[in-house]
């Protein structure tokens, strides 16, 4: 390859790297509340337009959640927090499997919750945090007539690849905390591998149904 050609490639590479870098920088700079709002509205809009999802195509909604929502969750942190003290007793392979199965379970649950709330009015609360904070709670309220609104709190932390959620609290009920007791019980009874098996069996169960509206 000629000298000129290789210089061109270097320039090209630098440009690509620059673009990628600036994307990364953008991802990092997006404030957590803006991120939650953008992602939620985008997903809700897609569901609103997609006849397949509305008629109960669960695979499609799971794919959507995996593409749009999943990248903004830190599943290894969630799993570590839910497995709590047993995390240290797990082998690297067990940790990997636990994270993978827990992720699948959460994506399924989250997908069916989304299909329930898609028609509600979302109220994105202003973020109460200092610009220097690296661990914040983003609050969303879902209005429902005749009852007090459902609160959705996303606990998020700043990572090199942007803000990531490590817990979701629905009406004050933390998902991670709720799984803690279940995981601890299962591990006490059947060991860490027992929990992995239990989660896998749960995930292989029949796909969740979406009730028609």
């Amino acid at each position: 390859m000629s000298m000129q050609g290789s210089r061109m490639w270097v320039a090209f590479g630098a440009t690509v790297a620059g673009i990628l870098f600036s994307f990364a920088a953008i991802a990092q700079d997006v404030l957590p509340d803006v991120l939650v709002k953008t992602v939620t509205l985008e997903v809700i809009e897609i569901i609103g337009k997609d006849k397949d999802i509305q008629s109960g195509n669960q695979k499609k909604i799971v794919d959507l959640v995996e593409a749009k929502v999943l990248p903004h969750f830190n599943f290894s942190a969630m799993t570590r927090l839910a497995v709590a003290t047993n995390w240290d007793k797990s082998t690297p392979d067990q940790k990997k499997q636990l994270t993978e199965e827990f992720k699948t379970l959460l994506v399924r649950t989250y997908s069916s919750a989304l299909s329930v709330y898609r028609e509600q009015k979302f109220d994105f609360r202003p973020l109460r945090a200092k610009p220097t904070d690296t661990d914040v709670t983003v609050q969303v309220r879902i209005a429902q007539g005749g009852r007090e609104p459902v609160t959705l709190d996303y606990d998020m932390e700043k990572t090199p690849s942007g803000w990531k959620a490590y817990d979701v609290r629905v009406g004050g009920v933390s998902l991670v905390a709720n799984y803690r007791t279940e995981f601890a019980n299962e591990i006490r009874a059947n060991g860490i591998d027992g929990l992995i098996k239990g989660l896998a069996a749960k995930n292989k169960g029949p796909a969740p149904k979406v009730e028609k509206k």
Partner: protein
Amino acid sequence: MTQSKRSFRSRCGLLSAIVLLGFSTGCATTGGDSRDPFEGFNRSIYGFNQAIDESVLKPVSKAYKDALPQIVQSGVRNFFSNIADIFISVNNLLQGKVIDAATDGMRFAVNTTIGGLGVLDWASEMGFEKHNEDFGQTFGRWGVGDGPYFVWPLFGSSTARDSVGRLLDIRVDPVRNHAPVAARNAMTLTRVIGMRADLLDASRILEEAALDKYVFERDAYLQRRRNLIYDGSPPRTSARANPAEQPVSESSVPAEPEFKQAALDAPAAASESGSAMLSASAGEGLKNVDAR
């Protein structure tokens, strides 16, 4: 009156039979959770409630949901919600939240009049926010701890404190006290079916999420009640009380600030006096077939 006394007595008879059955069959197993000393007993009542729900309440609620137009369902919901606002206001007052109590009073005034006896919730449109209060929450606010967790036949998840609160809620319930017997029974039935219908989606999600529904529902109830007592912002300080429950930090994840811990330790912190007010069914979240 005699009739209602007799039906009350026979209801008590049924309940004690169920309770005895529960004790005789259920006490063998316990998970050793300090918040739930009667787990074996509670599990058997939970099983009984599930059976009733699966065979009667859920199918009826599904039929209700499928048959009635949305607008009728929301009318029913709003009607009972409006009646409930009276004692939500009283409880806010008892907790010293005067502005909230006034908002509840305004809601009742607006909805009862221009909302057509509560069928339309104009107050929410006007910005008077709906609250969630009951006597159990008021006691919690006053510093009364949860006490042991209980599952009651038909009523479901509760704690010692919330059980007393629930008795008071029922005692003062306007539907119970001011409607003629026939109307009262019909209204109670409609209210229960309507509430269950509203929770169909939530109970399906629970079904999907839980490895052990009993545990999932119990922990959700306890977290939920704690959250309600503090009106959505429980203190985040109990975190370091139990070092055994600290999540293990990994190099890839920054150290946890205290408040993260607080959220996660809610179930584990029952031994502490402050957080002994943890208490169960995630209201709009999880199945809570109660007659409030």
